[in-house]
């Protein structure tokens, strides 16, 4: 195929930005349009539940690039503009105002949105934490140390709980899982982190279903549980996962399931590529369909799509990755390379859970699938090759024993 002249990227987060910059760095001289539905310049999300929520950082520190950088790299950045449809026949992106932007290749990087508790989408006092505006609203709601209920036992909820405690809020975390965070880190590490939160004064309600939010008619006043209890709350934080933003693609012919369904190359056919949280692709190593909501993955996929667009679908390379994610909670930094979910074995390599300083390997069906570290940044990196190679479990453990000796 011939080199494209116009690339339109829908979604101005890290994946979209990486795609735009990757194209330029790869020597692309055609038009690059980057469309973002938020009114803000592209910003970084991980600090929203960390430094920004805690009030330590301001808006400027969240920016991914200085305002002048877009013109300097000749990227036509359009913020506050929503794409409402994709016309794959005419190769045009349709915008809110009805105008159309034509493309030769389009990159879908529309990300995900936070899942809400049904019926609470616009209820004052109920917060999700996904966008900058969400974080600004939640930061304001946390002032004065109100009584908070966090619904959900994942990283976002745990980080919000941590920040809320630091700000002097009374915090209860509710999760339907028996051990908070166990989905992400397994039962043992989850129990260690749960204990950490309890020591810092977070009340944990585990293994309980949330029925809904109670209101005084105008705003949330508490959370109602399936066991009949009501937890009073001046603010409710809902951290129960996210959904891919794919509805705008309906009728476009782009294959959509849990995200935009791409092949190994992040290509969805017909000039359509996807990158970041919204992209579901076939992992070339495991053959599994994956969709990853991590910051690093977004940038890696954006760069990969840029390379593949420049190479053309026939020469495009499969996307391979070792996912990376981290979380800050109190004085612990938790880092994960790989995928811990579904692990059937965990081995502590160095340190111990009791010391809250350790590295661990996670495995499944005889293969290493992930390495997790708590406050051991450099030693953890040494374990990453086992994850990248999907090393045989016993061989990896033997190698580590030999290394320690």
């Amino acid at each position, binding site marked *: 195929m011939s080199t494209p002249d116009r690339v339109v990227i829908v979604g101005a987060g*890290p994946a979209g930005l*990486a795609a735009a*910059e*990757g194209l330029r*760095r790869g020597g692309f001289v055609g038009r690059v349009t980057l469309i973002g539905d938020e009114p803000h310049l592209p910003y*970084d999300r*991980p*600090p929203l539940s960390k430094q920004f929520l805690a009030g330590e950082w301001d808006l400027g*520190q969240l920016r*991914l690039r200085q305002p002048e950088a877009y013109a300097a790299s000749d990227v036509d950045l359009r913020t506050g503009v929503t794409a409402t449809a994709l016309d794959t026949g005419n190769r045009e992106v349709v915008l809110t105002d009805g105008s159309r932007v034509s493309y030769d290749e389009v990159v879908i990087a529309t990300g995900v949105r936070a899942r809400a508790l049904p019926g609470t989408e616009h209820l004052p006092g109920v917060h999700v934490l996904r966008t900058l505006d969400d974080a600004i609203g939640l930061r304001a709601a946390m002032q004065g140390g109100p009584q908070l209920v966090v619904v959900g036992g994942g990283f976002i909820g745990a980080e919000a709980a941590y920040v809320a405690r630091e700000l002097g809020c009374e915090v209860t975390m509710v999760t339907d899982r028996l051990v908070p965070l166990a989905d992400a880190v397994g039962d043992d590490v989850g129990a260690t982190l749960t204990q950490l939160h309890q020591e810092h004064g977070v009340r944990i309600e585990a293994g309980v279903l949330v029925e809904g939010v109670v209101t005084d008619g105008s705003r949330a006043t508490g959370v109602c549980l399936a066991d009949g209890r009501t937890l009073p709350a001046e603010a409710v934080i809902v951290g129960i996962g996210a959904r891919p933003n794919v509805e705008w693609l309906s009728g476009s012919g782009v294959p959509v399931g849990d995200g935009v369904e791409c092949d190994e190359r992040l290509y969805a056919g017909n000039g359509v590529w996807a990158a970041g949280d919204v992209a579901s692709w076939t992992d070339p190593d495991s053959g599994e369909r994956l969709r990853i909501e*991590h*910051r*690093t993955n977004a*940038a*890696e996929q*954006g*760069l990969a799509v840029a390379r593949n667009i420049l190479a053309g679908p026939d020469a495009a390379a499969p996307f391979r990755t070792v996912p*990376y*994610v*981290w979380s*800050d909670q109190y004085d612990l*930094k938790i*880092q994960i390379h790989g995928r811990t979910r579904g692990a059937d074995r965990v081995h502590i390599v160095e340190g111990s859970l009791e010391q809250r300083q350790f590295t661990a390997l996670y495995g499944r069906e005889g293969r290493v699938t992930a390495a997790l570290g708590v406050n051991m*940044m*450099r030693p*953890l*990196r040494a374990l*990453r090759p086992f994850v990248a190679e999907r090393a045989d479990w016993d061989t990896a453990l033997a190698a580590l024993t030999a290394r320690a000796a």
Partner: protein
Amino acid sequence: MNITIHEEKCCGAGQCVLVAPAVFDQRDEDGVVVLLDTTPADDQLDTVRNAAAVCPAAAIEVEA
């Protein structure tokens, strides 16, 4: 090439070291990025830019 490190943003992922081990390293105690080579040769530019791009904390800035 001019590289700026924002230590306060660094989350100690070590992704930069994986991409450009000749230019970046991590401190032992907290994993924070260390710039090994403040003036890398121009043929390192693409590698260094990739390292900056995959930094999950946007802690590395590169100017050509």
